[in-house]
């Protein structure tokens, strides 16, 4: 089949990544269009377009503040017709949503602070190449910052955090998806009860799972501080984690502190745990996948997210009324299709602990790389990882990213159990359970067992119990936590 690639550049035309993804998708769905992407012309985006076979010389000449439109179609006429539609969409007046009146909006952090001088937090979600510069401007004007953007170079992260430490301001992130500060959920977070448990996490969905389990079990959260996935690496040295411990240690409203991360670098772990030992508060340390950790006397180790929540609740059991279904185990492997990176890591840790062979695109300690795995390995996939989200929405925002893989896995005779996570709350899709249910409706009766956990609360707009009811009606086994899900998968599989 012949293909035609068409590029067009709009000079100095900026749209945010979510708006561009919506437009890209709408064009891709046209008949005759094989693939389409609208992206700002930053070096990283030009590389993505090159890799996708969507860049021509015209797009390659674009700058970071130019919009590139890349279309691959079956015919030149089809590509040009799609381009006309893109122009129509781009030129359509955009609504601000909710009938909000048009008010003047500042174009810089400095301009924003003239209008709101008492602001104390900057939430930054610009393309990664520009995020450190915006964060630096905010820090120097006295703001704490949460950097949602990813693809920030690690040396920039280190430099920013060193500067923030000098300025006594917090840098949450980069790649920080979740925080709750003084009861305010920032970016992807849930409506949880206020309380006296503080959470510090190098992991977005880990924070969401622990805070929602605590809240649904009757406990409450003082603050949840995201530090970014690389904070506990040797290169960054745990700067934000240590500042967060200082802050929660000094916070009169926090009684107990939970630390959640993949295993930190050894030297960083030593520094962090030494700081933990100097506190008079109780700590729960959940380094997912760590085999052991020498902890100070005021800290408990938790091997799973559920046990971390239980420890913070003073030993109260979560899901104690849950009775696993009396299903006969099936031969085959476990296939995990996760939108949450930490939930994916936890599943691997649990399966490995039960002696199973595990492969993943984001392998936990002891797991193999997906590309190197044989057919007898459990395959636990993080669909939020870069290779699945470059130029596409994250599966928590758009669950259709998981649809195709779920359909294929439902008819895979080698799979005994499918694990899926449903993450709700601010920023998440309006009905992720409905998406899964729609696909399940077409599945054959002899399909693999499907196990789901719902990360969220009754107060979230998607409503935890409604999501659970939708899944159950579709024949999904819904369990009380992500930990329960992986544990149940083990019992429903046999070799």
């Amino acid at each position, binding site marked *: 089949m012949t293909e035609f690639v068409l590029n067009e550049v709009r000079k100095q035309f900026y749209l945010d990544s979510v708006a561009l993804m919506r437009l890209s998708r709408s064009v891709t769905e046209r008949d005759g269009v094989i693939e389409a992407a609208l992206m700002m012309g930053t*070096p990283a985006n030009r590389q993505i377009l090159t890799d996708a076979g969507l860049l021509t010389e015209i797009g390659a000449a674009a700058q970071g503040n130019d919009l590139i439109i890349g279309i691959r179609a079956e015919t030149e006429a089809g590509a040009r017709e799609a381009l006309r539609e893109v122009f129509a969409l781009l030129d359509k007046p955009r609504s601000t949503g909710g009938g909000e009146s048009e008010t003047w909006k500042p174009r810089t952090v400095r301009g924003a602070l003239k209008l709101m001088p008492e602001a104390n937090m900057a*939430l930054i*979600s610009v393309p990664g190449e520009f995020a450190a510069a*915006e964060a630096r401007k905010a820090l120097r004007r006295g703001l704490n910052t949460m950097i949602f953007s990813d693809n920030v170079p690690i040396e920039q992260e280190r430099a920013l955090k060193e500067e923030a430490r000098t*300025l006594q301001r917090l840098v949450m992130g980069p790649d920080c998806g979740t925080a709750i500060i003084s009861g*305010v959920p*920032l970016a992807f977070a849930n409506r949880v009860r206020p309380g006296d448990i503080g959470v510090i996490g190098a992991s977005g969905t880990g924070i969401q799972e622990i805070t929602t389990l605590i809240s649904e079990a009757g406990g409450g959260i003082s603050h949840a501080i995201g530090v970014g996935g690389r904070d506990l690496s040797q290169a960054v040295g745990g700067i934000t984690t240590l500042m*967060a411990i200082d*802050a929660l240690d000094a916070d009169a409203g926090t009684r107990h502190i939970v630390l959640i991360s993949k295993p930190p670098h050894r030297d960083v772990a030593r520094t962090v745990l030494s700081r933990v030992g100097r506190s008079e508060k109780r700590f729960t340390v959940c380094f997912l996948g760590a085999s052991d950790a020498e902890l100070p006397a005021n800290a408990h180790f938790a091997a799973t997210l559920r046990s971390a929540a239980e420890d913070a609740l003073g030993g109260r059991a979560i899901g104690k009324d849950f009775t696993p279904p009396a299903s006969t185990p099936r031969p085959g492997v476990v296939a995990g299709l996760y939108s949450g990176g930490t939930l994916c890591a936890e599943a691997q840790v649990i399966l490995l602990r039960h002696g199973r062979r595990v492969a993943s695109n984001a392998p936990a300690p002891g797991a193999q790389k997906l590309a190197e795995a044989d057919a007898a390995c459990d395959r636990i996939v993080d669909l939020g990882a870069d290779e699945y989200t470059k130029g596409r929405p994250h599966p928590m925002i758009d669950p259709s990213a998981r649809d195709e893989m779920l359909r294929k896995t439902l008819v895979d005779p080698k799979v005994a159990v499918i694990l899926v996570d449903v993450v709700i709350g601010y920023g998440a899709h309006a009905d992720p359970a409905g998406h899964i249910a729609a696909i399940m409706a077409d599945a054959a009766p002899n399909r693999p067992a499907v196990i789901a956990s719902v990360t969220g609360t009754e107060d979230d707009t998607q409503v935890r119990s409604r999501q659970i009811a939708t899944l159950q009606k579709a024949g999904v086994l819904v369990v009380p936590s992500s930990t329960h899900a992986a544990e149940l998968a083990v019992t429903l599989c046999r070799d």
Partner: protein
Amino acid sequence: MTQERPASPAENGSRELLPAPVKVVNVGLPSFAEELASGGVEVIQVTWSPPAGGDPEIADLVSKLGA
């Protein structure tokens, strides 16, 4: 804007690092600001576009120079 460093960071630090009420400058995705505003949080949206002609290195340099 930069406030003076507190005399006792251990005691005052938590208030500055974990402010209440949180008042947000949102630089990027407008949906984050919309969700905060709907939850009653004071938030101001920056209508951002790539600075420095879209060159990330120059943008980084400019931010270091305090512009």
